[in-house]
């Protein structure tokens, strides 16, 4: 039997390579689509967890009485409400799929580095600590869902 010419063998490999790659991509696309739907975590839950971090974690904005080392969850220390603290407690360099946040309280506005467009807006009444006093203020939270 005569061997097929080398050129037609190479062409066959190239065609097979394209078809196989396309098939693998299609398969992984179908699987990813279905898996993403079935094992989905509600975006609202994820966003709420991050918002709770901003309000409850003393490394973010939560007020902490240093004398007795007590953290007041949900109470914001206005002194801490600054860009530097947000960057420190919500470190997202190089991450693509985490939500972006813009937080506004009074005339102070800070945002995470991945915030581009506001896709959801929430308004919350927050207890703040300012000049040794507690007072209620409105915080506007804009979220860029990725």
């Amino acid at each position, binding site marked *: 039997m005569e061997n097929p010419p080398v050129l037609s063998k190479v062409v066959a490999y190239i065609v097979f390579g394209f078809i*196989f790659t396309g098939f*693998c991509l299609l*398969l*992984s696309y179908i*699987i990813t689509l279905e*898996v*993403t739907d*079935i*094992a989905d*975590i509600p975006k609202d*839950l*994820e966003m709420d*967890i*991050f918002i*709770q*971090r901003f309000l*409850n*974690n*003393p*490394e973010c904005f*939560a007020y902490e009485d240093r004398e007795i080392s007590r*953290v007041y*969850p949900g109470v914001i220390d206005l002194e801490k409400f600054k860009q530097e603290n947000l960057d420190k*407690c*919500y*470190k*997202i360099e*190089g*991450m*693509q*799929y*985490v939500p972006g946040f813009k937080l506004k309280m009074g005339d102070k506005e800070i945002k995470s580095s991945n915030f581009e467009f506001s896709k959801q807006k929430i308004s919350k009444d927050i207890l703040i600590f300012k000049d040794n006093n507690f007072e209620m203020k409105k915080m506007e939270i804009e979220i860029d869902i990725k």
Partner: protein
Amino acid sequence: MFIEIIIGVLAAYLLTSVALNYGEQNIFLKTKLARDIAIEVNTLYAVPGNIYLQYPQNLSDYRVEFDENVNIVKVYQSIDPIPPSYNYVGEHIDYLKEYKKDFLEINKDKNKISFKE
């Protein structure tokens, strides 16, 4: 001829393992675990004090790996062509050195998260 056999075996192995993974529904569980563990790490940062937590799911069939360069949790089996992963946001983490654990024990102390080896 030898190269064709190797390529054929590799292609067959890849497709079979993906199909088995899909058929046994492991891929759904691994994806769920990766997302759940990432969400759990995020939740720990939302708690003001110190906390100890044992992840309730037995993970003896899986390996859990935290990639600190891109902040993702990966859950996979020994050979896994598509390891599901999910992003978390956090730092000050003492990462697991041994990826295979029956139960994941997480400790947060002074805003630093560590895993019991």
